[in-house]
């Protein structure tokens, strides 16, 4: 690692101020950023640790009925504290990586990173969640901008994520056994207004909504409804773990499993 300064602010205001310095970078749980720094793929002048900011940690029900999760809340805390408020989300959090990764990794770090195989982006997009930053609110549909890209500006931090709670929901993950990320993962959320389906791990464009399945499931919420559908392998990820065709096939299979688990 190259050398850098380290700050541990305890308020959002101080963190934003510290991040205004040239080449300063936010540090969440470090589960992605620390390995990146070790490979010298990043050279920040200063890291601003967000995990000591009490107002950015924890899970609660907001006044509008949504579930609000602080941007620096570790996966293990979401797995526990969201269990009664939004069980499908808590279950997803409890399946990320391994216990030690879940102790440190945060929801804000996962979303800011937008790894094409990460789990949270699927929940955020399928739930139609809102990403609250230090300066604005961003709808999930506008937040993800392709592999490792988001709508965040430099120095902008995710302070909270607000999830509307669906009537029924589930996440079905086909784990890549070595990395434990999703080889393909599908989050299905059924609201009174319709069904949303978000797919992670499969596309080179990162997380996406499978609109065709949403339509079919909105009129018939059963695994049967997606059986006849198919996804084109064009633009799907191809690597040593799976071909684009394999991933395209998994999209339908995991969608059906998610619907089954939710129903």
């Amino acid at each position, binding site marked *: 690692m190259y050398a850098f300064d380290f700050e541990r602010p305890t308020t959002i205001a101080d963190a934003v101020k510290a991040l205004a310095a040239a080449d300063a970078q936010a540090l969440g749980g*470090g589960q992605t950023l*620390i390995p990146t720094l070790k490979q010298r793929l990043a050279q920040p002048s200063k890291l601003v640790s967000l995990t000591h900011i009490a107002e950015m940690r924890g899970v609660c029900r907001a006044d509008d009925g949504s579930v609000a999760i602080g941007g620096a809340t570790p996966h293990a805390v979401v797995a526990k504290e969201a269990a009664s408020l939004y069980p499908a989300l808590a279950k997803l959090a409890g399946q990320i990586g391994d216990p030690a990764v879940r102790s440190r990794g945060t929801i804000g770090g996962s979303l800011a990173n937008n790894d094409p195989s990460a789990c949270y982006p699927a929940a955020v997009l399928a739930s139609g969640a809102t990403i609250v930053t230090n300066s604005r609110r961003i709808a999930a549909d506008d937040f993800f901008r392709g592999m490792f890209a988001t709508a965040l500006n430099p120095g902008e931090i995710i302070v909270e994520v607000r999830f509307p709670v669906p009537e029924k929901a589930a996440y079905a993950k086909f784990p890549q056994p070595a990395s434990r990320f999703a080889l393909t993962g599908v989050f299905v959320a059924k609201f009174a207004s319709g069904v949303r389906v978000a797919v992670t791990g499969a596309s080179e464009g990162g997380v996406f909504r499978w609109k065709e399945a949403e339509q079919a499931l909105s009129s018939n919420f059963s695994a049967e409804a997606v059986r006849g559908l198919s996804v084109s392998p064009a633009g799907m990820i191809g690597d040593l773990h799976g071909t684009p065709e394999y991933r395209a096939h998994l999209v339908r299979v995991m969608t059906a499993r998610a619907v089954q688990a939710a129903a």
Partner: protein
Amino acid sequence: MPKVSMKVNGKAVSGEVEGRTLLAQFLREGLRLTGTHIGCDTSQCGACVVHMNGVPVKSCAVFALDAEGAEIRTIEGMANADGSLSVIQQAFQDHHALQCGFCTPGMVMSAAALLAENPRPTEAEVRKYLEGNICRCTGCHNIVKAVLAASGQDVAAIAAE
């Protein structure tokens, strides 16, 4: 250089570190607590697992300065007060759950975290929980056996070789 203070195995400690000093480095090189091993240094193997404020973390993926004020427990803090092996450590010995011993500190710390959270896990729960700890020697069966034995369960029929 910035100073960091924390409690390690119940003892207040402090030292000078750089921003980039990892908790694993601070423990091993700063405090000479070399029981915590660095295997992969890429967050994959779990040899470096310690407890930070009661939860397991990979100390190769935590900055020392982020552990300011934290309670850290390492393998050196696992034995009983009289120096005899703790129940989990003894079970590892009894069930031949280690060969070269490189993964063992992380395995024991992860096992302790599991049993604190879930005192009587099933075999499947043990395997699932130890997903982030890799052992190149034992094939893992005896580790699973040892953890189940440490939880007070009869392991004669479990994880048959």
